[in-house]
């Protein structure tokens, strides 16, 4: 019924060049940071960290604790609870918040490569996680242990926030229930299944963080992996790249609200 002439299909035209990572990523990081680092989140996570430090102080003043006990406390509170929980809350919110409040489209519909969005979210998460978790863990280690404990705690924390950060950035993108699934991973897999077999243990990030702490603090009782610290760092890098690549693939295929 139309009397409007039908336009002829256009041959492919030259598209506008994509925007470089050096231009787009700082702008995206600047936008993601305040959305993730909300006052409520930072206060709650800092309170958890402070609670750990206070418990550490109480333990140190209450008993004569030896080096091994100090390292075990750093591992039990810091690497088992604090670092994974902080990483879960922050990293899952980077892309998760954008997706939930339907603002991801403002990055997604721009002439920028998807990996830049994923990497920007990951870096924004690290910019919060490294100072927050690093500071709490360094103070905690200094409270209960010695210099080698502090060094071990800092390296283990860096290993943890990078690997957990990538994993939970991916999780925040693919599900709206990232916190619940993240807790299942931390509590069920790492806390229970990971201890049942050597293979399952190797699939848990905690085994690498505690091994890094164990080697640097020279406490063999926590050694769950035979890998040396450089190998642990390489494995962490591989895990990180794997999760970020998976997030990029998912973002390419996803339907954006």
């Amino acid at each position, binding site marked *: *019924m*139309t*009397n*409007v*002439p*039908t*336009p*002829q*299909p*256009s*041959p*492919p*035209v*030259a*598209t*506008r*060049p*994509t*925007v470089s990572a050096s*231009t*787009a990523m700082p*702008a*995206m990081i600047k*936008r993601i940071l*305040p*959305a993730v680092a909300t006052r409520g989140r930072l206060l709650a996570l800092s309170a958890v960290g402070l609670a750990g430090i206070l418990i550490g102080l109480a333990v140190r003043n209450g008993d004569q604790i030896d080096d091994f006990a100090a390292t075990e406390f750093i591992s039990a509170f810091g690497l088992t609870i604090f670092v994974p929980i902080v990483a879960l809350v922050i990293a899952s919110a980077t892309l998760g918040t954008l997706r939930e*409040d*339907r*603002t991801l*489209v*403002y*990055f*997604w*519909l*721009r*002439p*920028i*490569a998807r990996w830049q969005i994923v990497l920007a979210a990951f870096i924004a998460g690290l910019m919060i996680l490294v100072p927050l978790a690093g500071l709490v863990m360094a103070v905690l280690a200094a409270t209960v242990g010695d210099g080698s404990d502090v060094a071990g705690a800092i390296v283990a924390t860096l290993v943890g926030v990078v690997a957990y950060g990538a994993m939970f950035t991916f999780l925040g993108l693919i599900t709206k229930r990232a916190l619940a699934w993240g807790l299942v991973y931390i509590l069920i897999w790492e806390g229970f299944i990971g201890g049942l077999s050597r293979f399952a243990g190797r699939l848990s990030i905690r085994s690498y963080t505690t091994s890094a702490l164990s080697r640097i603090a020279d406490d063999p009782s926590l050694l769950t992996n035979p890998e040396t610290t450089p190998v642990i760092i390489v494995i962490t890098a591989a895990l990180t790249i794997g999760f970020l690549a998976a997030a990029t693939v998912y973002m*390419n*295929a996803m*339907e*954006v*609200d």
Partner: protein
Amino acid sequence: MTAQAVVVADRISKWFGDVVAVSEVSFALGPGVTALLGPNGAGKSTTLRMIAGLAPTSQGSITVLGNNPRSDAGIRGRIGLVSQEEELFAEQRALEFVALAALLCGVANPEAAARSALGVVEMDPDDQRPISTYSKGMRQRVKVAQAIVHRPDLLLLDEPLTGLDPRQRLAMTTLIQQLGAQGMCVIVSSHVLDEVERLGSNVLVIAQGRLAAQGNFHDIRALMDNRPHRIRVRTDKARALASDLLTYGGVNGITVVDETELLVDTHQVTLFRKRIAPTARYSGAQLFEVHPLDDDLESVFKYLVGR
């Protein structure tokens, strides 16, 4: 000379599980304003999202300037979108928000472009308030500013007049017409017929996920007027009036409900409207009510789909 198509949809379909949102829709649209008209839930937003590349088609293909909008990052720099549902970065100022859009689109001077785009939609670029404090109409205009800040070739507007007051609606309608006149391909979705009439002459009517009609607005308007209508007439002499209407009133059939009410079926609603009063006078009948029972847009769409 026929214009080159900016958007070509070739038998596109989209389904979510068992629900078919869009079914085998094809069209080719060139520069200018095209209205995507349809009732709520007809598949307009889904179609716009597929054109923008936000959602993949379940079947069929879409090209924008000959490229795949979903996989070609470069073509996304030529598309602007004002979605109905998306939120804004609430804590940013409007200038920051629009400048970010410009920067991510590779515009050389993002702040200058953002100031210009905000000026076009009659927003103050120096407003220091965060977007979260804005009214719905102001937010809508900021959304439009971020969609046009990079001068896209294709602008997709999903119900852009929602939330605007009458003066803002007029300004937005004028802006849309200007952008179309400047050679931009503008696709505007709406479920309000009167809005579409003001926006432009080219219309795609989508109903129940199908393309029900395509073409000039006035042709579609005539089609809507010339479809069968059912009208309720309340009078004091129903039988006498029914008899005379069958003779003079341009009607196809009449049901006498009782002594005071008739249901009239007609294909010539304009003629019927002209003749009902003189016919009632001729019959000596008083008219209490003449009420179309199926004049809402939903009925129109049902008719178009069922043809």
